[in-house]
C-alpha cells in the first residue's frame, strides 16, 4: 500500500504549532517535517489547513444495540469521521444497556469495521435503575474505564457513595455523572426560568445540577475516586468544579457546543430540536460555561451526539425525546464561536476537542503529539471554509441538529483513522 503524505498544512498539537508535512506508512506516522518529498506516495492537500491529532468525543450515543432506526455504530462513526473525530466513547443507555460485559464485547466487536475508534462507557448501576451497582470489575476487564448512567442521574446518595467507593479500587476508573436531581427535574422539559414561565412549559431548574455536583464532590472528597461532570451547563456547577480543582480534587468536566452557544430563548419556537437534557439555559449560564472552557475549569468539549429518528422529533415539544446531533458540527461551532472571535486560541480549542478528552477517558493512541512513531489518527481542518448546516446532508441517520441553516466557519477536509483516509475532501470514503 502506498504511503500517504499530508502536504502544505500547519501541524498543531499539545506541543505547539509548526509548518510541516506528515508522512504516513501503514498505521503509523513515519515523518513530520517541512517540505517532505512525495515520491510515489498518495498526496492529500492540506494547503491553508491545520493538521491536528484526530479529535476525540467522549459523549456520543451510537444507539446500537436497540435503537438502530436513529443511528448505528457504522453511521455514527461516519458522522464522527466527517466531524474530524478518530475516537468516540459510546454511552451505555442502549437497549439493553451496557451494564454487562457480553453486551460491551458485542458493541466493541461491531465497532471493528467502524470509521473511527470506539470505546465504551459502562453503566454505574444495573439497568441504569439507580439501585444496584453494575459489575464494574467485569466491565473494567473488557476495557471500560468510564462509568455513567447517562441519560439519568444516580439520585440516591447512598448508591452514589457506594459507586465512588467501589470504583476507587479500579485503577484509572472514572465515575461520570449526568447531574440533574431526579425529583427537581421531574416533569420538566426545558430550563426553568424566564422562558419556561412565558411559554408555560414545566421547567428543570439550574439547582438540579448544582445540588448533585455539590453532593458528588463531597463524596469524591471522601472516597478519592476520579469524577467527571457530563455536559455541564450551569454557572453554579461551573463554580463548584472550579473550587474543587483549586482544592486539588480529581475532577474533570465537559461541555457541549450548544451549551456554550444557544440559550433557552430558542425554545420559543416550540421546536423540539432545541430540547435536550440538561436543557439549554439562560445567558448567564451560557457565559459561565464559556468562561469555564477558556480558563480550563471545563476540560473538554463533548457533543452528547443524541440522534432521534425524525418522526420522534415531529411531536409537540413536551412529548419529543431530548437530544441533539453534534458529531458533524462540534468542531465548526467551536471554531466559529470560540476561536474566530478570539475567545480562546486554536490550540486551546483543539485541546478541548482532542487530547484532553482522550486523557479523561483514558483512550490511548488518540490525541497525542503528531510525531514519528505515533499512530496515524489525524484530522485536517480548513479553518476558513464557510458552510451552511443542512440536516438532509448529514451522514447521521437522524436529522435533529439545532444548527440548521446556520453558517459555520471551519470544516474538516480529511480524516485519517489508523492510517486510513476515511474522509477525503470532505467526503466519507466508505
Amino acid at each position, binding site marked *: 500500500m502506498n504511503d500517504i503524505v499530508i502536504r502544505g498544512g500547519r501541524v498543531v498539537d499539545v506541543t505547539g504549532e509548526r509548518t510541516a508535512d506528515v508522512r504516513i506508512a501503514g498505521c503509523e506516522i513515519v515523518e513530520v517535517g517541512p517540505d517532505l518529498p512525495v515520491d510515489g506516495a498518495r498526496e492529500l492537500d492540506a494547503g491553508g489547513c491545520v493538521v491536528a491529532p484526530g479529535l476525540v468525543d467522549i459523549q456520543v450515543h451510537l444507539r446500537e444495540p436497540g435503537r438502530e432506526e436513529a443511528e448505528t455504530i457504522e453511521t455514527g462513526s461516519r458522522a464522527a469521521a466527517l466531524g474530524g473525530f478518530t475516537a468516540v466513547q459510546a454511552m451505555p443507555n442502549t437497549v439493553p444497556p451496557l451494564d454487562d460485559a457480553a453486551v460491551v464485547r458485542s458493541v466493541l466487536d461491531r465497532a471493528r469495521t467502524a470509521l473511527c475508534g470506539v470505546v465504551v462507557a459502562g453503566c454505574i448501576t444495573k439497568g441504569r435503575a439507580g439501585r444496584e451497582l453494575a459489575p464494574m470489575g467485569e466491565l473494567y476487564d473488557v476495557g471500560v474505564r468510564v462509568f455513567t448512567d447517562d441519560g439519568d442521574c444516580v439520585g440516591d446518595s447512598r448508591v452514589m457513595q457506594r459507586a465512588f467507593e467501589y470504583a476507587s479500587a479500579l485503577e484509572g476508573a472514572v465515575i461520570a455523572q449526568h447531574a440533574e436531581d431526579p425529583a427537581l427535574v421531574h416533569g420538566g422539559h426545558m430550563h426553568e426560568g424566564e422562558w419556561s414561565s412565558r*411559554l408555560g412549559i414545566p421547567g428543570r431548574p439550574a439547582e438540579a445540577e448544582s445540588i448533585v455536583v455539590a453532593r458528588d464532590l463531597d463524596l469524591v472528597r471522601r472516597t478519592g475516586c476520579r469524577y467527571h461532570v457530563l455536559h455541564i451547563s450551569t454557572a453554579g456547577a461551573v463554580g463548584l468544579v472550579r473550587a474543587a480543582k483549586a482544592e486539588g480534587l480529581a475532577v474533570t468536566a465537559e461541555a457541549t457546543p450548544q451549551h456554550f452557544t444557544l440559550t433557552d430563548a430558542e425554545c420559543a419556537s416550540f421546536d423540539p430540536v432545541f430540547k435536550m437534557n440538561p436543557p439549554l439555559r439562560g445567558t448567564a449560564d451560557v457565559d459561565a460555561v464559556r468562561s469555564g472552557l477558556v480558563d480550563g475549569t471545563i476540560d473538554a468539549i463533548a457533543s452528547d451526539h443524541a440522534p432521534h429518528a425524525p418522526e420522534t422529533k415531529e411531536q409537540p*415539544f413536551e412529548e419529543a425525546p431530548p437530544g441533539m446531533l453534534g458529531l458533524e458540527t462540534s468542531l465548526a461551532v467551536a471554531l466559529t464561536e470560540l476561536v474566530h472571535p478570539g475567545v480562546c486560541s486554536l490550540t486551546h480549542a483543539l485541546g478541548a476537542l482532542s487530547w484532553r478528552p482522550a486523557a479523561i477517558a483514558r483512550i490511548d493512541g488518540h490525541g497525542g503529539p503528531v510525531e514519528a512513531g505515533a499512530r496515524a489518527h489525524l484530522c485536517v481542518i480548513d479553518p476558513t471554509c464557510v458552510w451552511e448546516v443542512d440536516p438532509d446532508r448529514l451522514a447521521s441517520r437522524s436529522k435533529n441538529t439545532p444548527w440548521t441553516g446556520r453558517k459555520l466557519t471551519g470544516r474538516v477536509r480529511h480524516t485519517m483513522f489508523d492510517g486510513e483516509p476515511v474522509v477525503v475532501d470532505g467526503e466519507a470514503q466508505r
Partner: protein
Amino acid sequence: MKRHLLSIADLDRTDVEALLELADSFSEVTQRDIPKVPALRGKVVVSLFYEDSTRTRISFETAAKRLSTDVMNFSVGGASVSKGESLLDTVRTIEAMGIDAIVVRHQSAGAPHRIAQWVDASVINAGDGCHEHPTQGLLDVYTLRRYRGNDLSGLRVAIVGDIKYSRVARSDVLALGLLGADVRLVAPPTLLPESLEGWPVTTTTDLDAALDDVDVVMLLRIQRERQRDAVFPSLREYTSRYGLTVERAARLKPDVLVMHPGPMNRGIEIAAEVADSPASVITEQVSNGVAVRMAVLYHLLAGGVGTAGGDQR
C-alpha cells in the same frame, strides 16, 4: 392579517382591537332570531380536542355553524382520535379530507405551533398545555369592553389563583397588557411562575391587599390534584387565603366586575353567592365566547379584515 391564531403573544394592539370590533358585529348576529350568516359557507372547520372540554369545543362549533361552515369533530373519547396515531399523522389525515381550519386543544404547550408547520390549513389554538388560550383572553377583554367601554387603560384587574399552570392567565395578561390595563397577579408563591421577567404585571401573595381598589377580579380554577404536588396544603387553606369569599366580595367596590373562565369550583376559589351575584359577568363571558370565536374564524378564513373592503354595487 395572519394565517393562524396560536398565541396572543403574536398579536399587537391593533390586531386585538380589530378582532374585538369584528366581534361586535357578530354579537349582533348572535342576538337575532336566526343567528346565522352565510359568510363562510363551504368552508370546513375541524375541532381536534385531545383534552376533554365540552364547553370550549361547543363554543367553537357553534361559532363555526353560525358562519355556515361545515364542522367536523375529532375528539379523544369521541370516535376518532386513536391513541396510537401520532399527532402528525392525525392532522395530515384530517387535512387530506379537505379542510380550511383546525381548532386544536392539546395537553402539550406548542402543539398548535407544530401543527401549523405540518398543514396548510389555518390553525386556531383552543388551549395548549399551560401556554395560552388565546380566544379566552380575547373574550375576557371583550367582555370588559362591553362593560367599561373600549378604553381599558388603567383598569385595575386582579387575576387570582393558579397562575403558574394557567394558559388562561398567560393569554389574559398579554391581552390586558396590550390594551393598557393595570394587571396584578395574586397567588401563593408556589403558584406564581418562576420568573416574571418581561410580564407587564405586579404580583402579590396577599389577596386582601390586592382587592382594595380593584375594578375587576378574575378568578382562576384551582385544580385539586395540585395538592398532591405539595403546591398548597389543603383546599380549606387555599379558600381562606385566596378564595373570593362573601366577606371579601363585600369589601369590593360597588361596580366591580367578577370573572371566571369556568368551570368553577363553587365554594373554593369563588363563593357560590359571589358567582351568582350581580357583579358576576361569568355567563356573559360564555356568550361572548361565541361572538369572539366567530370573529376569529371569519378573520382567518374570509381573507382578513381589510380597510374599506369596497362597497359592492
